[in-house]
């Protein structure tokens, strides 16, 4: 039964092909029936495989489907270990829940069946990525999720914005993939294999510089896929796609591929101090920038997009601090509450007839009580309020950074990590603030707009929300300071890896209190401003706060002008540059030389062909002449050489 876990990988592919072939025949009901049952079946098989695997004390299983060459080792193989097992459950489970939601959200859409084809294809690609036992298959999955993400972002391609967003995501991802590909080439050159296990085991024999080079190139790939600074601007634009697709791809699974990959290579990564510093600083920078940018967005989905980027930043911080378990833990909890938030937003958008501006909402709580309640749970969870899921994982990350500071052997590093911890705490506070604002703006703040026509979302939408809400509350208990469940699951995967552990005793309590405090503070500030309307109630008098607040608002809504800077500097600059390159280098030099070679080859060919006269006497002469030439070559070369 070892091969059982292969089935859920290929089931979505088969479903996608099946639905694609029958897209003209099936109506919505039949399509829904097949796709939901297939998703449920693949989750059930995954669950069963995972339980079998757990009963076997989490011993990794590897299966080689096909070996192309032995040296260099190029294989198509899959593995089920703690890491891929967790991802398998996560992807198949969320895929089912979100497809259930989609059946209602995509109702009466013209391309209903196409949506599910793409969706299933995405699930297949994602599973290929996470279940692979070597870098090559992972790269296949890596590229295919990029493709299916592109297809889903520009799903409504009649909208110019959607088509443009799809292109942007694709192009920016290409930059990351380019780095990933170079990393793979160096890996193949250094280790002569793609297999994770072999590479990780032999990574101790390789110099730290090589490891750092490989890690940094792979990191570029992770930055692209996981939308980290400076390659993050595609994710907010990607919100043009259907909301349930965003929930799965751009919140729960695909964007976490970078985090997954870094944890996968953690046995190698831990040997490179440089890479760790790069990861933690870029993660922190991303977390702060994205959290800051989320503060003044008015699009209901864009807030969530920036929030996703920011939370991914948290995961990178955890990896940089060596807390790989915490990173995966946050990945799991985040997947649930962010999927919940996205689906909730989807329900709101659906009920508001595709209105996404939060300024036109407000006071929806009475109209949509279930959605409001569930999104409230999501908001509390992401803000880190105990005992909801987000608290446990975020607290673990914060505590790990703190512990890392204590472990540093030089004072400079120690101070640096304490600084990182403080800034991370700040980002957590910002998270609570903008998420509180998000919820209050949608459901609480009275804008004086009449919403009497708005109705609660249909049951096919609210049920997934309730399910995810329950998970968002309880999923955190899989890995608490009192019960290290996830750590046990990941034990085999992270064998020989030095994982940063939480501090003990009173320090942990203080850290927990601080992180809870940050969450509450953020929420309270949000409530004071958007719920209690504090600035209207008290008269600040001579304090002129208007201009600094406007400055902050301006910077936030323009994402610190990073996009515009990028546009002017890279896009326009590159356009001019590449135009020049196209004319001079490509047109004159490359084309010229290629054309010259080919025409010269053709001419030579014509001239030499003339020697093929068809006359036997000529052939005999060639024969004799060349024979004499070759023999003399043979006789005289030893004399020349000596």
């Amino acid at each position: 039964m070892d091969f059982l876990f292969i089935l859920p990988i290929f089931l979505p592919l088969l479903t996608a092909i099946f639905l694609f072939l029958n897209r003209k025949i099936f109506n919505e009901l039949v399509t829904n029936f097949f796709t939901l049952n297939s998703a449920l079946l693949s989750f059930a098989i995954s669950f069963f495989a995972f339980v079998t695997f757990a009963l076997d004390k989490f011993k990794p299983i590897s299966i080689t489907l096909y070996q192309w060459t032995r040296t260099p080792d190029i294989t198509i193989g899959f593995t089920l270990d703690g890491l891929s097992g967790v991802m398998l459950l996560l992807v198949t489970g969320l895929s089912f829940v979100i497809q259930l939601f989609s059946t209602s959200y995509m109702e009466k859409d013209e391309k209903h069946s196409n949506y599910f084809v793409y969706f299933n294809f995405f699930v297949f690609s994602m599973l290929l990525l996470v279940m692979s036992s070597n870098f090559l298959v992972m790269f296949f999955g890596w590229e295919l999720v990029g493709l299916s993400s592109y297809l889903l972002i520009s799903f409504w391609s009649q909208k110019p914005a959607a088509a443009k967003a799809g292109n942007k995501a694709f192009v920016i991802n290409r930059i990351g993939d380019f780095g990933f590909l170079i990393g793979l080439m160096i890996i193949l050159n250094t280790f002569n294999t793609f297999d994770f296990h072999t590479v990780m085991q032999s990574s101790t024999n390789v110099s730290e510089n090589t490891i750092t080079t490989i890690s940094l190139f792979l990191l570029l790939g992770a930055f692209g896929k996981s939308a980290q600074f400076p390659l993050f601007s595609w994710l907010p634009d990607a919100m043009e796609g259907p909301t349930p697709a965003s929930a799965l791809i751009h919140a729960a699974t695909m964007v976490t591929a970078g985090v997954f990959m870094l944890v996968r290579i953690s046995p190698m990564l831990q040997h490179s101090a440089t890479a760790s510093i790069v990861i933690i600083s870029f993660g922190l920078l991303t977390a702060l920038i994205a959290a800051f940018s989320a503060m003044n967005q008015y699009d209901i989905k864009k807030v969530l997009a920036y929030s996703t980027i920011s939370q991914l930043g948290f995961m990178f911080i955890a990896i940089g601090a060596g807390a790989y378990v915490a990173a995966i833990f946050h990945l799991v909890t985040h997947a649930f509450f962010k999927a919940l938030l996205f689906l909730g937003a989807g329900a709101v958008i659906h009920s508001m007839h595709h209105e996404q501006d939060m300024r036109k909402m407000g006071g929806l709580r009475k109209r949509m009580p279930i959605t409001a309640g569930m999104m409230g749970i999501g908001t509390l969870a992401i803000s880190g309020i105990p005992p909801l899921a987000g608290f446990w994982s975020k607290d673990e990350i914060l505590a790990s950074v703190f512990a890392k500071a204590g472990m540093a052997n030089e004072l400079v590093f120690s101070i640096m990590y304490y600084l990182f911890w403080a800034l991370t705490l700040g980002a957590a506070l910002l998270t609570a603030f903008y998420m509180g604002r998000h919820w209050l703006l949608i459901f609480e703040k009275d804008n004086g707009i009449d919403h009497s026509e708005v109705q609660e979302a249909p049951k096919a939408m609210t049920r997934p929300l309730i399910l995810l809400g329950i998970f968002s509350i309880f999923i955190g208990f899989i890995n608490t300071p009192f019960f290290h469940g996830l750590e046990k699951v990941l034990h085999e995967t992270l064998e020989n890896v030095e994982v940063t552990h939480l501090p003990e005793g009173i320090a942990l309590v203080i850290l927990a209190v601080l992180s809870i405090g940050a969450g509450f503070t953020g929420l309270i500030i949000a409530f004071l401003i958007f719920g209690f309307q504090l600035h209207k109630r008290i008269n600040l008098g001579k304090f002129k706060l208007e201009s600094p607040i406007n400055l902050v608002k301006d910077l936030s809504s323009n994402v610190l002008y990073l996009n515009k800077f990028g546009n002017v500097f890279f896009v326009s600059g590159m356009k001019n540059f590449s135009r020049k390159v196209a004319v001079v280098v490509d047109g004159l030099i490359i084309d010229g030389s290629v054309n010259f070679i080919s025409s010269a080859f053709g001419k030579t060919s014509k001239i030499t062909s003339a020697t093929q006269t068809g006359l036997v006497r000529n052939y005999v002469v060639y024969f004799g002449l060349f024979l004499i030439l070759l023999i003399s070559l043979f006789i005289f070369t030893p004399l020349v050489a000596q």
Partner: protein
Amino acid sequence: MTGISDILGFNFVVIGPTLTLLATALILLFVTITISTPTFVKKYVTLFGILSTVFAVFLKFGLFLSDGVSSYFSEKILLDEFALVGNVLIVLVLLFTFNSFWKTSSQIDNKTTEALILILMSASGFLLMVDSENFIMLFIGLEIGSISLYALAGLNRGDQLSNEASLKYFLLGSLASCILIYGIALVYVSLSISGVYETSIAISFIGPENVPLTSLIGLILIIVGLLFKVAAAPFQAWAPDVYQGSPTGYVGYMASVAKASSFIVLARLSAVSLNFIIDKFDLFFTAVIILSVLLGALFATNQSDLKRLIAYSGVIQSGFILSGISFGVYGISASIFYLATYIIQLIGVFTIFSIISGQLSSNFAISNLSGLFKENKFLTITFSIFMLGIAGLPLTSGFVSKFILITNLWSYEKYILVTVLMLSTVAGFYFYLKPIWVAAVEKTDNTIEQIKIQNSDKLLISTLAFLTIYLGLLPNTLVNITRWMVENYL
């Protein structure tokens, strides 16, 4: 079996395949001159003869398992891995080309029997050639095989091109035979030996440094005689004319059987006779290889006749195969792999040509292919597979064979040779893709007349195409066989 051998005084199993083919040819001859036989009898007698030959080759494997590498008939006939693989290759060529040479023969009025006998005799000659330990036996086998091929080329007497091809092949072939026998004589004069193993022993006895120049030149002449048969440049001039002129149905057999046996003999020479002095021949082989791939690519670029194009591509392939044979034991195994896969593609291509333009035709212009895709998708797709295989596109066996050859050369640090071979592959894509373009992509108004494919042809072509893809994806089996072949010569 040993009992019979003892009574007869010689082991007939070791020349079993040759004898079987000979017997089949004689039966055909006697039956047809005495009684008028219906054609289907001839067909089944031939087929039965070939299948018996397959069985005889099996018996040889049994003999090899019990005796190992051994020689018979007072060191005239050798049973070793090369002989076995050579036998298998030749028998497979006979089996795979049976369909097309039978149809060609049945179309030649009054000469069906002659054609079949010529083919069977030539195969028996080439079998003798790959079995030979003595150079004289090698010469005799080569002549038996070649003379039948000369006649085969001119069998379509009504076609002027066919006559011309036959005469050219004969004249140039006899020149090559002269050179071969002269080389054998030179070796015999200087070392008083004429055997494959004897040469190696003599060289190790007198020391590689003291080998007389006459015997070295003799060895070179022997090699040149064989290089002529595989159409390596600069001895390639006959190949395009002969391929173009001969009846299309025969070319697949003619080209592949001569190549297979000559390369097996060359491989044995390199692995056994020359193993102490192979580095002396480095420059000679390098020159031949570079000339082959360069001239082949230059000539092929400008061809409008597909049969000539395949002939020149054969020159390039000969260069590739030589590049393995002359550099190291693993190179030899890579070469045999290349040879096997190339023969499969070659037979496939010529079977398709003979179906499209008729078995007896001589010219086959590229424009004959236009509109093929509309008329027959099966032929177009398999034709593309074979051409891409010869070109060396990944996922086909052609890529794997080129890959292992070039990695072997790389490990010998022959960077110039690697570069030249790679460049010729690149140039090759131009003329390999051109026919595919004409057949499949180019828009055209002229329609090919109705093509009828028999089921046997369909089966044969799809088997060959399947092998081409299969060996590209899972080459391990064949690679292991070729590795096994050279294991003892490390």
